[in-house]
């Protein structure tokens, strides 16, 4: 327990101490990371813990954002509501809409459940632009953060600490929930809904409550985003927002409480750092998702968890070499993939088509990574191929020793003793 708390305490200390020393871009990135983490954890209560995969969680995130903006507008008009408590509006709206939507969606499980949630989010997405009074039409709603009790909320750092406080409180509540009878019931529901019924539980009511709580915390996340951006429009209800949270959760690991946070941090950072560098960043994000699902189905959080759990039995003197080999191999494969994708992005771009026309249909040289390449020479194609082959060879070499070492660890370990 104490060991588990140490990394949390370090992360917490960093989040409290560091931001004033960071520039605005990073402060904003941290706000987005916190919001994405909360959204992913709220989503995972439903998807990972109760086994109900929703494809429409944008609806509750968006509802929370619009509710907060409406309240912000009232405060602007003179309502005496404390600005720091704005996320309560998001929570209330998320809970309410979650109860109604959840009542219908949870009548079914599995694919049908997923499709109903998707349809509900699409409903919001298509209605919002027309309901100008509620969602502000296509332009959306905007409002200003009003000062309250000495807090101006004019600077980003104040918004950051407000976000941090709400996210920390919400995560604490979500974690506490997993320790309650209801939290355990959610896990049971995921394993065997039928048996839950035959133990005397009303499975439908159970699912509605889980859905509503998940929607409530998604609403808090949405409200925090509205407070940070001071604006929101119907794009918040887009299926891309729903897909994003699925991505966070499953890349991070749905079976571990903090797994979705790992995914949210990685992808939010990725978007912040990589989206400026290349237009193909969504493609890279998709590739990461596919690779994680194929080779680490329990997510990156699952990988970390597995290593922490067996840290006593891991023989690093023997694991280090194959791990280093595999890492180097992965880097080479990644370099090959990036080079190829960037090359294709240039060669198939409009600019290059124009350049070709100017060159009279030939294949003029182009620039990738600050160097000039000619498409008809074998170099730009053989280079990634060679990198890929070398990387793959290294990975395949490392695979066997890693497999055997882990097999030994698993065979030698006692059954997982994990009282709760």
């Amino acid at each position, binding site marked *: 327990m104490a060991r588990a708390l140490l990394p949390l305490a370090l992360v917490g200390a960093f989040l409290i101490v560091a931001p004033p020393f960071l520039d605005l871009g990073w402060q904003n990135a941290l706000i987005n990371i916190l919001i994405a983490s909360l959204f992913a954890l709220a989503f995972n209560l439903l998807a990972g813990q109760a086994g109900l995969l929703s494809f429409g969680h944008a609806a509750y995130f968006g509802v929370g954002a619009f509710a907060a903006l409406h309240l912000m507008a009232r405060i602007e008009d003179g309502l005496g509501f404390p600005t720091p408590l704005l996320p309560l509006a998001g929570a209330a709206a998320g809970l309410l809409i979650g109860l109604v939507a959840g009542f219908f969606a949870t009548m079914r499980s599995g694919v049908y459940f997923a499709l109903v949630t998707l349809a509900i989010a699409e409903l919001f997405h298509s209605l919002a632009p027309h309901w100008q009074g509620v969602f502000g039409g296509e332009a959306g709603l905007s409002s200003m953060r009003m000062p309250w009790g000495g807090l101006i909320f004019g600077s980003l750092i104040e918004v950051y600490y407000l976000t941090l406080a709400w996210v920390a409180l919400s995560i604490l509540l979500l974690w*506490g929930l997993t320790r309650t*009878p209801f939290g355990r019931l959610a896990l049971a529901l995921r394993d065997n809904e039928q048996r839950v019924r035959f133990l005397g539980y009303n499975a439908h009511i159970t699912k509605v409550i889980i859905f509503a709580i998940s929607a409530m915390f998604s609403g808090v996340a949405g409200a925090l985003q509205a407070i940070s951006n001071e604006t929101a429009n119907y794009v918040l209800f887009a299926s891309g927002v729903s897909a994003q949270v699925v991505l966070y959760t499953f890349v991070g690991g749905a079976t571990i409480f903090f797994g979705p946070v790992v995914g949210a941090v990685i992808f939010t950072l990725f978007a912040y750092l990589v989206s400026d560098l290349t237009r193909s960043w969504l493609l890279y994000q998709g590739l990461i998702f596919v690779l994680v699902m194929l080779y680490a189905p329990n997510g990156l959080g699952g990988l970390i968890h597995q290593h922490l759990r067996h840290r006593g039995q891991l023989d690093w003197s023997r694991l280090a070499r194959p791990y280093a080999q595999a890492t180097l191999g992965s880097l080479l494969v990644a370099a090959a993939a990036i080079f190829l994708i960037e090359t294709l992005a240039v060669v198939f771009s409009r600019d290059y088509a124009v350049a070709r026309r100017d060159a009279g249909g030939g294949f003029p040289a182009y620039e990738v990574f600050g160097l000039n390449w000619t498409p008809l020479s074998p170099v730009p194609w053989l280079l990634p191929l060679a990198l890929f082959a070398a990387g793959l060879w290294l990975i395949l070499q490392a695979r066997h020793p890693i497999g055997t070492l882990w097999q030994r660890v698993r065979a030698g370990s006692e059954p997982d003793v994990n009282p709760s």
Partner: protein
Amino acid sequence: MTEALLELNGIAKSFGSISVLQEVNLDVRSRERHAVIGPNGAGKSTLFNLISGMFAPTSGTIRLQERPIGGLPPHVINRAGLARSFQITSNFRRLSVFENLRLGVLARHGIRYGLFRPVSRMRAVNEETAELLSIVGLERRAHDMAGDLTYSEQRALEIGMTLTTRASVILLDEPTAGMSRDETDQTVELIRKVTTDKTLLMIEHDMSVVFSLCDRVSVLVYGSILATDTPPAISANAEVQKAYLGEETAT
């Protein structure tokens, strides 16, 4: 005591045009151990599914302590005092053995949607769970995942889970299926122990289990009850022999 605790009258069930049960009449008396036997496809599991609320009967009435329960949802029937096990092991495989049992105990204590207190601090619930754990002999496995248990341990857990809600009527669906002789004997003793003061209705193929455990037997053949009597009388019943036991006793 001859009054019926569980009473089925004219129960019929069809799925579309396929009729599985026709006119089933069955009385299970208070505190008796009652077996349902019959060839494969006779409708035994369907009968259990009707009694426990998985399906509603097409026609007929089911009464539990004189209260009609036919067509009620499973959780309502469970709360009325009837618990069942499943033929195919049906536990929460990614939860610990302890937690599997505790979920039932929580339901019995009415803590169904407890949101505000950690379950680890609910002493009465945890003590009762520990007690059940020792009754079914799984103390050593308390903190292992239910999915990691051996087959016979899973069957013991399955029986344990039907006890968690302290139902007065227990339905066991082939509790000894697939077990070795030794395991079967142990399971019979376990069932005997845990159904003292309770009413048991079980589906069973193994005639030696039926003989050693049950007070009465009903024979279900082609969707209706052929006869209900004590085990010796049933094995002497010519009609039953012809319809069902005949194939086995002839060898």
